C-alpha cells in the first residue's frame, strides 16, 4: 500500500503487474467517481366540502417531483478498456414527476335504530400520472487530465430516455360495524392503464375483510386486569390487487444507433444503423392479478404484557408479467408476457413480551419482540418449460413449473445415471448445460417422452424463514434498543467468494493436493491427483462450465441495529419553546455471521449487487457491506 499508484508525468494508473494491465484500486478511488444529487418536492393539497354531518366530498391533488442529477467520470490513464484509457464523463438528469388526483364522496350512515349497525362508504376515482424523463450527455476522450467538464472531451453522444404511464381507477368501499365488535368491509376497484391496448387495459379487483373482537362482544371476557386474555381480535380477509407493466410492450419498433463501427468506409464518425428491435410486441399483454386470502388473530395476555399476532395467508398470482426470453430463430429475443400461475402460502407471527414493566414513569422497562415470517411461492401453471426471466441465458432466476419462483439455474457438474459427479481426463469436474426433468421435477435421461428441458437448477435464493428479535430497554430518560435478525436458508451465487477461493486468498493450506470425488468418463472412480491451484482456480473459483460450485447457503445472523437515546427531562424544557428534545446515537449492521459460508471470506449476503429488478441471489464481485453510525437530534416545538 505504500507504493506509488500514479505515474508522475501523466497521472495514470500504475500497479504491480509487469504489463500494467490491472488498474490500481487506489488510483480508482482518486480518479473515478459516481455521484448523485437529488432534489425532491412533494406535497398534497386537499379541498373538502361538507354537505352535512354525514356526507362530504373530497378532492386531493398530490405531486411528487424529484430530479436526480447524476454524474459518472473516470480520468484518462486507466488501463485496458477504451473508456478507462481515454477517460469518460457522463452527466444525466432523471426528472420524475408523479401526479395524483383523487376525488371521493365519503359518507356515514346509521342503519338501525339502536345505532349498533353503522355504515361508512366511499365512492370515487383517482388518477396517477408517472412521467420519467432522462436527458444527458456522455463524453469520451479526455483532453486535459483531471478536468471534468464536457468541453474537455472530444466526443459527445446523447443520453435520452422517456417513459410515461397513466393509471386511472374508480373504486367503492362499504364498511359495516356492529356494536364495536364486528366489522365487515367490502370494496371493489377497477384500474385502466395507458400502455396496453383498449381490449386488455383494465382490471377489476374486489376485496372483503371481516374482523371479530370477542373480548368486546362477550361480557367478562377480556379486560385489562385479568391474567388471561386481555384482548382478542380474530380477522380474516380476501383481497386482490393488480399489477401493470412498464414501458411500451405492445408495439414493435426500429432501433437506430449512431457512431457505429463501419470500418474504413464508415470513417471516423462511424455509420448510422437501423435494425428491427429484438423485443417482440405483445398486444395481448394483460395486467396481472394477485389474489390472497388471510386469516389470523391479534391477542394480548397477562395484563397486557404479552402481545401475540399470527397470520396465515395464501396468495396466488395469475398472469404474472415477466420479461420472457424467446427462441432467437423466431427473429426476436425477448418479450413481455403473462405467465401462468404462481401460488403459495406463508405465515407471519409476531410475539411481544414486556419482560420488565415498571409502574413508575422513569422505572426500568424492557420490551422484547420477536417476529417470524416464512413464505413459499410455487409456479403451478406455465406453458413453457422454463422462463429465465432475469439474468443470462445460462445463469439467472427462472420460473419452472413445480418449483419455487426464482430458483437459480446455471451450469452444473455433470452427473452420470447414478448421480455420481463426472471427472474429466484432466482431473477436474466436467460441466453440464442442460438436463431433462419429468412432470414431477425428477431428473430423467434427455429425450424422454414428455420431459422438459431446462438449464439445471442449482440453488434457491428464497430463505426458509426470516426472524427478527427487537428489544427496547428504558430506564429514567435513557432508551437502549437493539435488533438481531436471522435469515435462514436461501442460496447465493457468489463470485466474491469464488474469487477469494480461486486466488488462494482464504484457503487454509495451499500445499494440499486433491483427488476430486467422482467417477471418470468410463465409470471408474477418479484417481487423478490435482494440485491446490488447479482445484481452487480451474475447478471451483473460475469455472464457468459448472457455476454450481459457486452456490453457497446464505443463512446469516446479524446485529442489525443498536441505538441509545436520551430524552431531556421535561422540567428542563419548561421555560424553553421546545416540547421535547431527544438525542439518539445509533449503529447499523454492526456485526454479522454468514455461518454456512467459507469462514475467512467474511462475506455479507446482504450486498445489493444487482440493482433494481427481479434478480435475487446473485453477487458479481461486489464491495463489502458497511457499518453505519449516526447521531440524530429530534426536537418538537
Amino acid at each position: 500500500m505504500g507504493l506509488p499508484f500514479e505515474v508522475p508525468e501523466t497521472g495514470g494508473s500504475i500497479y504491480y503487474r509487469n504489463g500494467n494491465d490491472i488498474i490500481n484500486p487506489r488510483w480508482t478511488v482518486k480518479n473515478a467517481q459516481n455521484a448523485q444529487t437529488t432534489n425532491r418536492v412533494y406535497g398534497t393539497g386537499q379541498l373538502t366540502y361538507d354537505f352535512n354531518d354525514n356526507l362530504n366530498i373530497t378532492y386531493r391533488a398530490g405531486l411528487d417531483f424529484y430530479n436526480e442529477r447524476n454524474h459518472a467520470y473516470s480520468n484518462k490513464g486507466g488501463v485496458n478498456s477504451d473508456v478507462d484509457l481515454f477517460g469518460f464523463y457522463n452527466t444525466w438528469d432523471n426528472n420524475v414527476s408523479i401526479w395524483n388526483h383523487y376525488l371521493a364522496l365519503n359518507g356515514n350512515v346509521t342503519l338501525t335504530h339502536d345505532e349498533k349497525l353503522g355504515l361508512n362508504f366511499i365512492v370515487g376515482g383517482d388518477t396517477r400520472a408517472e412521467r420519467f424523463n432522462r436527458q444527458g450527455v456522455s463524453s469520451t476522450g479526455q483532453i486535459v487530465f483531471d478536468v471534468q467538464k464536457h468541453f474537455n472531451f472530444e466526443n459527445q453522444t446523447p443520453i435520452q430516455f422517456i417513459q410515461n404511464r397513466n393509471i386511472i381507477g374508480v373504486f367503492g368501499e362499504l364498511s359495516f360495524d356492529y356494536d364495536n365488535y364486528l366489522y365487515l368491509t367490502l370494496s371493489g376497484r377497477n384500474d385502466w392503464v395507458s400502455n396496453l391496448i383498449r381490449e386488455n387495459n383494465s382490471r377489476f379487483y374486489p376485496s372483503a375483510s371481516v374482523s371479530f373482537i370477542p373480548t368486546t362482544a362477550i361480557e367478562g371476557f377480556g379486560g385489562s386486569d385479568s391474567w388471561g386474555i386481555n384482548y382478542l381480535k380474530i380477522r380474516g380477509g380476501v383481497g386482490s390487487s393488480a399489477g401493470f407493466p412498464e414501458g411500451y410492450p405492445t408495439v414493435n419498433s426500429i432501433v437506430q444507433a449512431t457512431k457505429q463501427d463501419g470500418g474504413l468506409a464508415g470513417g471516423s464518425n462511424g455509420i448510422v444503423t437501423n435494425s428491427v428491435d429484438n423485443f417482440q410486441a405483445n398486444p395481448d399483454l394483460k395486467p396481472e392479478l394477485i389474489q390472497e386470502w388471510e386469516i389470523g388473530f391479534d391477542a394480548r395476555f397477562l395484563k397486557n404484557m404479552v402481545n401475540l399476532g399470527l397470520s396465515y395467508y395464501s396468495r396466488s398470482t395469475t398472469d404474472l408479467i415477466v420479461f420472457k426470453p424467446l427462441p432467437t430463430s423466431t427473429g426476436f429475443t425477448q418479450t413481455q408476457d403473462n405467465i401462468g400461475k404462481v401460488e403459495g402460502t406463508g405465515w407471519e407471527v409476531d410475539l411481544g413480551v414486556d419482560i420488565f414493566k415498571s409502574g413508575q414513569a422513569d422505572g426500568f422497562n424492557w420490551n422484547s419482540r420477536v417476529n417470524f415470517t416464512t413464505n413459499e411461492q410455487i409456479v403451478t401453471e406455465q406453458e413453457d418449460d422454463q422462463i429465465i426471466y432475469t439474468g443470462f441465458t445460462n445463469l439467472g432466476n427462472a420460473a419452472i413449473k413445480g418449483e419455487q419462483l426464482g430458483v437459480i439455474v446455471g451450469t452444473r457438474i455433470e452427473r452420470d445415471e447414478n448421480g455420481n459427479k463426472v471427472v474429466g481426463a484432466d482431473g477436474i469436474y466436467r460441466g453440464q448445460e442442460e438436463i431433462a426433468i419429468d412432470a414431477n421435477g425428477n431428473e430423467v435421461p434427455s429425450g424422454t417422452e414428455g420431459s422438459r428441458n431446462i438449464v439445471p437448477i442449482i440453488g434457491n435464493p428464497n430463505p426458509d424463514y426470516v426472524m427478527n428479535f427487537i428489544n427496547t430497554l428504558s430506564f429514567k430518560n435513557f432508551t437502549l434498543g437493539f435488533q438481531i435478525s436471522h435469515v435462514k436458508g436461501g442460496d447465493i451465487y457468489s463470485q466474491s467468494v469464488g474469487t477469494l477461493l480461486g486466488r488462494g486468498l482464504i484457503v487454509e493450506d495451499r500445499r494440499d493436493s486433491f483427488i476430486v470425488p467422482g467417477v471418470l468418463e468410463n465409470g471408474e472412480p477418479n484417481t487423478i491427483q490435482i494440485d491446490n491451484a488447479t482445484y481452487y482456480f480451474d475447478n471451483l473459483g473460475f469455472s464457468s462450465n459448472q457455476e454450481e460450485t459457486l452456490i453457497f447457503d446464505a443463512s446469516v445472523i446479524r446485529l442489525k441495529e443498536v441505538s441509545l437515546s436520551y430524552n431531556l427531562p421535561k422540567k428542563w424544557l419548561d421555560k424553553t419553546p421546545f416540547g421535547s428534545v431527544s438525542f439518539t446515537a445509533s449503529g447499523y449492521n454492526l456485526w454479522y455471521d454468514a455461518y454456512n459460508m467459507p469462514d475467512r471470506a467474511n462475506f455479507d449476503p446482504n450486498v445489493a449487487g444487482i440493482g433494481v429488478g427481479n434478480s435475487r441471489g446473485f453477487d458479481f464481485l461486489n464491495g463489502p457491506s458497511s457499518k453505519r453510525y449516526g447521531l440524530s437530534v429530534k426536537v418538537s416545538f
Partner: protein
Amino acid sequence: MKRFKYIIIAFLPVLAFLQGCETTELENLDDPNNLGPDQADPALLFNSIQTNYRDAVTTFNDIGGDLGRIEYMFGRVYRENYTGSALNGPWADLYSDMMPDITTIENLNADGSLNFVLGASKAMQAHIMMLLIDYMGDIVWTEANNPAEFPNPTLDDDEAVYQAALSLLDEAKGLLTQDNSIVLDMYYDGSAEKWVRFINTLKMRASLTLGDYQAVINASDVIEADGDNMVFEYGTNQLEPDNRHPDYSTDYTASGANEYRSNWLMNLMLGNEGDVLKEDDTIPVTRFDDPRRRYYFYRQKEVTPGNSTYLFFEGNGQFFIYPDDLGGSSVDAQTLICSTQETPAHIQFTPDEAYWCSNFLGYWGRTHGNAEGIPPDNFTRTASGVYPAGGRFDDNLDWVVLSADQSELTLYEAGVGIGLGAGGAGIEPIILSSFIEFWRAEAYFKLGNNSMAAEHMMEGLKESINYVASFGPRDGSANLSFAPSEKHIEDFINSKMDEFTNASNSTSLGSDGWPTTKDKMDIMGEQFFVAMYGAGADAYNFIRRTGYPRTLARSIEPNPGTFPRSLLIPASETGANENISQKQDLQTQVFWDSGVTNPAN
C-alpha cells in the same frame, strides 16, 4: 383575505383540469425511445446487415482458426471449450438481426429500387446460413422468423437448408443487375458485378464442400483479382466508434499484447535459418522461410525462453548462437514456465517437440490446447502483424549484434503500443482469390490431375504472397527494406512446388501417429492454412472434409477428447425453445461429412 382564498380555491381546479387532460389519456402505446416500424430507412438497415455479417463471419474465422491451429486455441478439453454459447453470436446475427431487417427491406421494395440492397443482403444471408450448417448441422429454416405461427421453431434437415441457401444465392444474383452508388456498400462499393462474382464464388465453395469437383473446376466469373476479394476494411479511429481491427485493439495496447500466436504456424513459416540464410552461404538450406512471416507476426523480443537465436559478431562477420555461445541460458521460469519443464510424454520424439513451448528466432507463442495462466509477457510475446490486423511490419533483424570489442550487445527495440504500425487499418479476410486457387488445386487432385493441381497451387501461393506483401506500406514507420525480395519469393515458391511435386499421392503413418513423409495433400493443406491466416472459417471444413493436413500440432493435453465434428446448438435457442433440445456431444456429423479422421486430432 377571503377573496384571496376564493381565488386559490378557484385556481386549483383549473390547474387540475388542465393537467388532468393529459393524466387521463389512455392507449399511449408508442415507444418514444425508438423509431416506429414504418420509419425505417433501407440504406440504414443495409448498414446494420453489413456489420452483422462481418461480426458473424469474424466469429467463424476465430473458431475455425483455433480448431485448425492457425490461431491459438485456449483450453485443454474440446467439450469444455466449445459449449452452447460458442455460436450464440452468429445465430443471433442471422435470425434476430439480419433476417428481420431483410424482410423489412423486401416489404419496402415494391418498385424494385432496392434490388441491389436486397441482392447483396441475401448473398450475405446465404453465406451465414451455409457457415452455420457447416459448423452445426441441422438449423432452423422453414419455421424461422414466423413467431405468430411457430413460436417454437423446429430444426430442418441440414442438406435441405443448404439447397435453400443455394436457391437464395440464385435469387440474389437475379436482383443484382445494376450498380448502386447511393447506399454505403462497405464491401464492394456499389458494384453489382463484384457481388455477382462473390455469389459465384460461394456456389463454387458449396460445390467443393459437397464433393462436386467438376463444378469447382468449371466455375467461372469468380473472385480472381485482388479487387474482387471479399474483405472488410477497418480504420484507425480509437473512440466513438472504435473502428480498428479487433486483433489490433487487443494486441496494440498500452499494457502490451493480449493474444498469443500459434506456435505450429510460426514454426511452419519459419524455415530453419530465417534471413541468416541470405547472409551465410555455408549454411545448408533445408527449409526456406515463408516470405509472409514478417507481415503475419510482429516479434517483441529477440529470443524466446528455452530457445535461441543467432548472434552476429561484428569482429569477424560470422554467426553464432545466442545466448548459448556466450555461455548464457534463455530459460526464464517467470515469463515462460514451460521453458523449465520437461516435454510432455506424448510429445516427446515427435515433430511437436520443436515448438510445443518455444520457437527459434524469438517467435513467442503458444501451442494448441495450452490453458495456463498469463505470465508477465505482454511486451515479450509475439503480436499480430500488419496483415491482416493492421499492426506493425516486423522489421527486426533475425539476429542480435555483438560489437567488435564485445562490449555492446544490440538487442531488439520492439514493442506494441497504441497507434503503432498501421493503426488498426487492417482487414477481416472473408474469401480471397488465393483461396479459390487452392480449391481448384484440391479439386484437380481429387480428379487425379496432379499437374493442374500443382499449377493452381502455385498460383494460389503467388496470389497470397502478393496480396499480403501489399500490406507493407500500410505501416508508415516500417523499414520496408526487410520486405522479401522477388528472388526470395521465387525461391520459396519453387521450393514448395518442388516439395509438392516430389511428394507421393499418399503416405502412411508412423507408429507415433505422424506421417513418415508428407504427402501431396499434407503440403497443399499446410500451404492453404498459411494462406487462410486471419480467415480460418474454412480450415475447420477442410480438416473434416479431407482428414488433412496430418502434420497439425497435437494438443498439449494428452486427452483433449474427441475432435468435434460439429458444435452445439446455441444455448440462447435451446434455453427458450421447447422443441429443440441440446445435442449430447460434439460428434454429430454434418450431412457432407464422411467422418474421415485426422491423426492430428
